[in-house]
């Protein structure tokens, strides 16, 4: 048995009569780049929201195995608790704090761990100053890592789409996560930005040891990045395997308009 980070066991999520996830079981190994693909409306983002505590599935269990910590059941936990335990994410339509600069955006992530509350802030004692300094340094490091150092004082709303993705990744990494969930990181980016993002995602895993869970429509990107894939359709897992296995899986081809991999590329 390999080292698990996420274990999703028979999860079902319904909104009234609409079934969003239907008996979904999947797992992610620690240090793995895992991708979830599927047509629009297949339940990919619902799965992400269930994994991060935003949605509460009615059935099944989701277990997050943090390193050196007790296994945590995600269902029933608030989103900020799940984030605090080491699950970071980005959003499909990037969600930044747009009136803040790039630096401030990342810094908010970096200091979410510090325990200084309102009283400490008002007194501004040595402990507060030390924490401030530490999170400043951490922020600078991360901006260097994602390549946004020269845009530190830019207003985040004026960043390009590709840079917004980088900013979201840096903000997520600032919370010192063990797994990073990326919801369509390449959406709205140009081909050169896509390449840069793929390299960055690989670097996050290789240099920081953070596992990656990825939703993506761009097949080229997914196939080059992911080590293993799950395919969702109508809320159910229809296939699982390596990129090569998925390409030749008849059920997957059926789901993607009943034709070849080229059709899958067009879907993107």
């Amino acid at each position: 048995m390999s080292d698990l980070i996420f274990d999703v066991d028979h999860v079902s999520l319904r909104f009234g009569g609409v079934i969003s996830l239907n008996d979904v079981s999947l797992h992610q190994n620690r240090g793995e780049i895992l991708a979830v693909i599927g047509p629009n409306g297949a339940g990919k983002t619902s799965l992400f929201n269930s994994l991060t505590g935003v949605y509460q599935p009615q059935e099944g269990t989701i277990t997050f195995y943090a390193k050196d910590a007790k296994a945590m059941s995600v269902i029933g936990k608030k989103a900020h608790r799940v984030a605090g335990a080491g699950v970071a994410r980005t959003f499909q339509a990037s969600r930044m704090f747009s009136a803040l600069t790039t630096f401030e955006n990342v810094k908010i992530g970096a200091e979410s761990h510090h325990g200084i509350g309102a009283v400490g802030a008002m007194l501004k004692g040595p402990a507060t100053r030390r924490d401030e300094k530490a999170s400043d340094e951490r922020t600078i490091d991360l901006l260097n890592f994602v390549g946004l150092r020269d845009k530190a004082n830019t207003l985040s709303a004026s960043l390009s789409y590709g840079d917004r993705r980088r900013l979201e990744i840096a903000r997520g990494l600032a919370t010192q996560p063990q797994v990073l969930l990326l919801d369509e990181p390449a959406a709205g980016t140009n081909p050169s930005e896509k390449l840069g993002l793929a390299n960055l995602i690989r670097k996050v895993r290789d240099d920081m040891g953070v596992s990656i869970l990825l939703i993506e429509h761009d097949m080229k990107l997914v196939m080059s990045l992911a080590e293993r894939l799950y395919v969702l359709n109508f809320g159910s897992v229809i296939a699982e395997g390596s990129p090569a296995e998925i390409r030749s899986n008849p059920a997957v081809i059926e789901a993607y308009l009943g034709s070849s991999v080229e059709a899958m590329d067009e879907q993107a």
Partner: protein
Amino acid sequence: MKLRLLLARPEVKRLVSCLVGVALIELMTGPSGSSTSPTAGISGSYAERFSFFGLFQTVRCVTFLFVALVIFGLWTLWLTWGRRWRGALTSASVAGAVSPVDVGRGRTMLVGFARAIVKFRTMTRLRQVRMVFLLALLAFATVLPHIETDPFWQAAMVEQIEVFVLLALGLNVVVGFAGLLDLGFVAFYAIGAYTTAWVTGALPTAAPFGIHLNPFFAIPIAIAIVMVAGVVLGAPTLRLRGDYLAIVTLGFGEIITIFANNLYGITGGSEGTNQIPHFSIHLGPINYAWGLGPVPYYYLTLVFVVLFIVAFSLLEHSRVGRAWTAIREDEVAAESIGINPLKYKVMAFAIGAASAGFAGVMTAGQTFFVNPSSFVLPVSILILVLVIFGGMGSIAGVVLGAIVIQGVTLYLIHSAPGWYQSSDQLIYIGALLVVMMIFRPAGLLPSRRRKREIGMAEAGEGHMDELLTGDTP
């Protein structure tokens, strides 16, 4: 058809709005009608004899027509010259110097002025310059009671200005920093005042443990109780958003007022109490009693105003302040990086309430009476107006907003010009707000963050006003 085309011309539009605006002002400042001749107010407003700026006698409408034409002229001038002036200002701030194109005959002075403003703006960004400026302001505030010796103003500076500065500072934490619309803020002010009355033994109900404290020692107790009230109100209700929260807080404010009015045996009912002793301090060798005069109270309150300003601005630029900004901008994203929105919102409620509670102690201790009529809904609205007028989220802004609005109101009460009727007070404040919303929508001294947010919301970007949208990321 021709008329419509004519009315569509921008200069005609300007002229018509000047005439309509001035006609309204004329009506407002004119005489009132009576039950026997209800139209006398209207006809009198336009036809009454009136001096033409002291030069000769004419009727009101002639003088006001002249005023309308002057406003129209200034407006037109502003549109042509003002644009050029603002252009000069922008190019001056961008290049650090004024481009030679702007320097022409007759414009040199204008450009010089623009340059001076840019220089001033750059200077105020320097920490040292700001410190000197703030210390100068503090020094001015310290000597103010010795410059202005009119007893009306001395009392007003404490009861109406300092107390409302405190209230505006507190509400600014809730509305400006955390982005929560609180329409019942006066409740915390009331709780502070009634707690003071309670622990000093002034209420019909017995003081705790039968000890009658003096208001000085009520300060920490009142602040603690008010903060607890903030948590008690906040914890269950802050799960609501936007309009829903506004309604709940509105209800809370009303509940407190109604309790104060109707719990006769506890609060003294609508008469309240006028038995609150004055502040005094007796600690070993230190013996001081605040008497009847307002000046000692002015200094005591000033100390606390400064303390609250320092504490709140440290808070704004700390982790907590940034977390508030994050929640205000995008709650879902904030949660995704481990920020607990409820915790920070409750914190904002409790911290904001603290300064309102202190304002309550000051009011009770200085005027030695409390009654429910000082804690009604219009006061909540007024505090909100001070915050919005000054600039949500900007500490300097809300302090200035409170001083300006309260100062103007008091001036009108104390030395009103002949045309002013005190019943029109809210109309003037409303007009002031409308004008401000057109020209400075982010407030007198806007906070940089808030100004950006408002700009982006107008451009359709950002999440600031997404109060009612669902949680779906």
